[in-house]
């Protein structure tokens, strides 16, 4: 039989979907896919197929076939226990606990002033909490923001903070330099490590959907692009946990949809994502786990379905009509 004919279009499609679903999975425990078979995939060989895999994953999420979320190797990457910070009489955060896992999108929501950005600032190291323990990837997190960045904590800001007078590419290269000096692997695309900074920047910019001129000064970009580039810059730093502060605010519907797709793909590829957002439909649709803050305290935590039904949350957000 001609070898060519073995690979019928159907078989190819199945193979492609298989590759897309498995992501960078290496080994399956026995009986992993429900048929009692063990599947072993060589990571080096898989890495070669990454770009194609990404393209396929992008095509497949285009409404036609639902993508099964890869939950391989999911582990807790961030544990926050009893995080407390006071500013004079203001209890910005009070005993906040949170857990973030790889390949999971965790949302942090709450009314304005609930302490969400303060929470992120504490995680980043820009603020020092009065009490509480943060453990990241097995390390206790108590160093400077720079050291936390090198450990793999990526972050974007509520208002994009790009280096305006530098070009987009130069902005991205800052992240690449950290990834190299900290010898970090790109969770979502291990092959990036071997590329030069320039190529990495181009790839990641392409991945996040930035179509503009990489040589243009970052300060000259339109607002939607600012967020995209900031995200790309954070990704260039090879984070294992990405903290996004209101990333979808100011984006129009189409941009928001693209953004959701991007986040899902990144999460599928193993990146842990922590998200502050006000857009409820986005949050409920994309997050696997939601923590609700109000006045600095955790009001509720759980999967979206639970949160939507939680009385206390409804009251805090919408108020009661009595």
């Amino acid at each position, binding site marked *: 039989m001609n070898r060519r004919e073995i690979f019928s279009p159907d078989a190819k499609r199945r193979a492609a979907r298989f590759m897309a679903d498995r992501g960078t999975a290496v080994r399956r425990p026995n009986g992993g896919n429900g048929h009692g078979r063990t599947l072993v995939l060589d990571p080096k060989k898989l890495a070669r197929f990454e770009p194609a895999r990404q393209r396929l994953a992008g095509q497949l999420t285009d409404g036609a076939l639902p993508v099964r979320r890869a939950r391989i190797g999911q582990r807790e990457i961030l544990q926050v226990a009893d995080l407390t910070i006071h500013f004079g009489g203001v209890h910005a955060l009070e005993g906040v606990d949170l857990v973030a896992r790889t390949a999971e999108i965790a949302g942090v929501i709450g009314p304005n002033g609930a302490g969400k950005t303060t929470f992120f600032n504490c995680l*980043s190291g820009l603020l020092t909490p009065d009490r509480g323990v943060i453990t990241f990837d097995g390390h206790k997190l108590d160093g400077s923001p720079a050291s936390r960045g090198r450990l793999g904590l990526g972050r974007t800001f509520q208002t994009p903070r790009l*280096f305006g007078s530098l070009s987009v590419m130069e902005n991205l290269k800052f992240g690449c330099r*950290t990834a190299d000096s900290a010898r970090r692997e790109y969770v979502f695309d291990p092959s990036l490590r071997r590329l030069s900074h320039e190529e990495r920047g181009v790839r990641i910019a392409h991945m996040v959907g930035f179509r503009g001129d990489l040589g243009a000064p970052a300060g000259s970009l339109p607002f939607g692009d600012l967020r995209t580039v900031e995200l790309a810059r954070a990704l260039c730093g090879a984070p294992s946990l990405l903290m996004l502060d209101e990333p979808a605010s100011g984006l129009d519907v189409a941009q928001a949809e693209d953004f959701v797709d991007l986040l899902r793909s990144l999460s599928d590829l193993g990146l842990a994502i922590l998200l502050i957002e006000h857009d409820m439909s986005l949050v409920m649709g994309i997050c696997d786990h939601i923590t609700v803050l109000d006045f600095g305290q955790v009001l509720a935590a759980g999967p979206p379905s639970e949160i939507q039904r939680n009385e206390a949350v409804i009251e805090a957000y919408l108020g009661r009509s009595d």
Partner: protein
Amino acid sequence: MSTMLEDLAPGKVSRPRPPKPTVQPGDRRRTATRTIGVTLLIAFVLTMPYDMKWAGSSFALDYGVIIGMAVLSMSVLGWIGEFTLATVAQMGFGLVVVNLLQDAGLPFALILPVVILSSIPISVLLGVFALRLKGVDFAIATLAFGYTAQKTFFQTYLGVQGGFGGTSSKAISRPVGFTGSESFYYLIMGSLLLMALICWAVNRSWIGTSLTALRESEAAFSVLGHSPGAYKIFTICLSGAIATVAGAYFGMLQGLVPSNYFQPALAILYFGFAVAGGMGSVAGACVAGIFFGALPKYFDSLSEGHFVGYDQFFIGIVALIVVLWIPGGMADVGRRLWRRVEGGGPAPPMVSPLEEIDVRDGVEGAIAAAAGLDTGVEA
């Protein structure tokens, strides 16, 4: 099979090819202007002591060049968005160190490196302040440092009458071969040009890019995994080294220095020069320092002593004009003029480091930030 492999093989990422450089119509004129301009400048710099003889002795020019170094030292801090008023104190330390080394009989070739090394501890001390304080708070701290150094160390060391620690010390002497005013000029001008070159090279390198990023957003910079502290201390050490060497040369220029010379108010004056030249600009700092440093001396000799104190008034007015209308200082003016001469288009507006410093980086800023408010939005 081949199609599947093609599908699954690593794809080529298409990059826009850079456009081939075409010869623009204005290019020849630009190159010609640049060559002529640079040649004229070099010629002028090489012969300045003789060109300026009509206005006064070369001493004024020497003085101006040293002030140029001091102003360069201050302007460099504009790279991290800070300003210092401790430059004058650091000059004083340079003076003291060179005196000690000459007393110990060290040859000139060794003196300068030792002077530079000796500046590092003080720079590191100031650097520690820079890590915790920002903007005006940092400037006040440097001012207090300068003031204390002047009142305690210098006054004690330099003695009440002036000179150095009493009659047993010698005056600071110039190195062999550079004892005349003109020859000394070439020594210090060469040093200034070397310093300017080093600063310019640093600015153009990845260090300069990092400093720009640091200035624009320290939070984003640190969160990306780069340490702002290291860059700040580096810049302060660079600034300190320049200032200390300037002080050493100042000692050689004057021979004896009165103990009350290094007033903090002098630092404020030099800061005015730095503003006029354009904070953060290497060329602007040098030009402004030389110009405003030499000017009062020339004024004195031309007017035979009638115009004492006019220089402060004059520089005050210039600095005010700069702040009101030309925040980029002389450097910005020079840049725009040069572009016009070259025939290029209008220059892009330069954001002066001055405009990026926020004076509220103190307790209030801290509280606002802590409340989670984004203080990046300005009225």
